[in-house]
């Protein structure tokens, strides 16, 4: 297939959107955390936990959306731990994040092994199926790419809109944005920086967990160790790439996913026969860095990101 043909094919963009979906959830989650001033390096582990929790809940008999809710709740709980350690106690967000990733991952694996001690391949669930939106899915190229996805993908897009609306159009979002920029501005208005930040980390972590659950409940239908495979870390880059704005971050996620979908297809072209496959796998990362260099000057980092706030001190 010609490279250009690939780029204009509906199936390619459908793949890009599919690959992007879990990233969109988790990126929105990370974005919410960082907007409130907390870098959440627990993302990778929280996604693992969410992937497992949603899947096992459905396996145990819950409906699919029930599984999503369970994943969200598990993410919230882990986010709560992250929040308590990093906000009122002000512990290093790097340490808490890495510790949370280790904790969430190992707890998940442990739970998996305790629940399913003797299996040679993990059980499958009836995952979300693609749902063609009437009419819209008939639009050429765009239709099959955008409107023949699973409900969870649609939810990812809705989440971007909701995140955006809440952040920019509601008092709560205003407080979150202020907490990430200058927490004393929030405290001086009688609002609790601690509560806002912990809340943001919890909700954001919930989104991350749903991103993980996408992998086991939409992209695939069972859970494997290590299946999150670094996607969480990508989302941290995507937040920066998106300059902490939901819309741009969404764009970044789709772009990254498009590169991923593209490299998969590129491997089957004549180029693929001569270039080592690692080069293709590297491509999305390299392009992210390149994009960061190009974008860097304009991005506005939340000023209080990674800065703990303690009422007693200035």
């Amino acid at each position, binding site marked *: 297939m010609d490279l250009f043909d690939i780029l204009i094919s509906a*199936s390619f963009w459908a793949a890009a959107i599919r690959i992007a979906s879990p990233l969109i959830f988790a990126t929105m989650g990370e974005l919410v955390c960082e907007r409130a001033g907390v870098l959440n390096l627990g993302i990778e582990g929280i996604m693992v936990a969410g992937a497992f929790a949603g899947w096992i809940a459905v396996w145990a008999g819950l409906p699919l959306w029930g599984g999503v809710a369970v994943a969200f709740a598990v993410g919230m709980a882990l986010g709560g731990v992250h929040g308590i350690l990093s906000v009122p106690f002000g512990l290093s967000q790097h340490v808490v994040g890495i510790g949370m990733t280790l904790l969430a991952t190992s707890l998940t694996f442990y739970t998996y092994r305790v629940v399913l001690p003797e299996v040679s391949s993990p059980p499958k669930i009836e995952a979300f199926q693609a749902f063609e939106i009437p009419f819209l899915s008939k639009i050429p190229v765009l239709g099959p790419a955008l409107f023949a996805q699973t409900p969870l993908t649609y939810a990812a897009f809705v989440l971007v809109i909701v995140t955006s609306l809440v952040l920019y159009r509601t008092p709560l979002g205003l407080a979150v944005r202020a907490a990430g920029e200058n927490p004393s501005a929030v405290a001086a208005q009688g609002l609790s920086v601690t509560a806002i930040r912990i809340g943001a980390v919890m909700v954001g972590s919930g989104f991350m967990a749903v991103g993980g659950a996408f992998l086991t409940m939409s992209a*695939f239908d069972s859970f494997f*160790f290590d*299946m999150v*495979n670094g996607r969480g870390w990508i989302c941290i880059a995507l937040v920066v790439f998106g300059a902490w704005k939901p819309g741009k971050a969404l764009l970044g996620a789709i772009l990254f996913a498009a590169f991923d979908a593209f490299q*998969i297809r590129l*491997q*089957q072209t004549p180029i693929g*026969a001569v270039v080592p*496959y690692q080069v293709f796998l590297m491509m999305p990362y390299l392009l992210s860095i390149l994009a960061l260099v190009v974008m860097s000057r304009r991005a506005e980092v939340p000023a209080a990101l990674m800065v703990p706030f303690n009422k007693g001190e200035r």
Partner: protein
Amino acid sequence: AAEPLKVAGIYTVPVEQQWVSRIHVAAVAAQDRGDIAYTYSENTSNTDYPRVMREYAEAGYDLIVGEIFGVEAEAREVAADYPDTAFLMGSSFKEDAGLPNLAVFDNYIQDASYLSGIIAASMSEAGNIGMVGGFPIPEVNRLMNAFMAGAREINPDIAFQISFIGSWFDPPKAKETAYAMIENGADVLYAERFGVSDAAKEKGVLAIGNVIDTQADYPDTVVASALWNFGPTLDAAIAAIRDGSFVAADYGVHSFMAAGGASLAPFGTFEGKIPQAALDLVAARAAAIKDGSFVVEIDDTEPKSS
């Protein structure tokens, strides 16, 4: 009956991984028979591997099973330090007479893979087969190459699309890769990784299994599978330890079809849907392999798309 042997497995991946799962299943079966008492450590990184070997050896295990592809030299040092413990290790190297307590094996199921390739080619109308692998390591390459050789016997011009996803456990990624291959014309997929058969199932094309039999999960998709049965390998080791004859040896032969270590899975739902010509060829090759008149080449080099 005699005291069960104390057997420990050390795996660098979770026991769900196909390759390891065959060892695990065989060991559990042996335990259920009462032959061994079995325990295992999974997801042990190569950094920790020698330490874990030592711990089991120190704890007095009779037999340690596992995979030392990444730690060949260190593992041999450990084996040398514990001459009374038998080590049966997946390894790319041959046994070493100077290290009598370490025997090697691998999944030499190229015979079955070859046969599954014949079937794959016969089922592919497009003459285009997609193959998704984790990493191009010897035992993956070996089976892919045998599969491709078998397929070419039916259709010398058949095209192969080959991709490695750089992970053992990323079914969504494997699935996406498989989708791309189907878009690109593949109508039969070689399912080296989890996720590939799922893509085939969704897109209504066929898949060929590898190492394990997954037809029950994909009844209308998985046509045939090249199975690995670790039982003969393990049983041979247990017997050897029991009668004190365990020595450095290449247990890989126990994975050959002739030894019952490899087989083509029953066609099950695809019974009667495979062209007779292919079935005849499979039968002929299988017989020739068993009597030694046909040898499937062992080729560990990285396969390339064609």
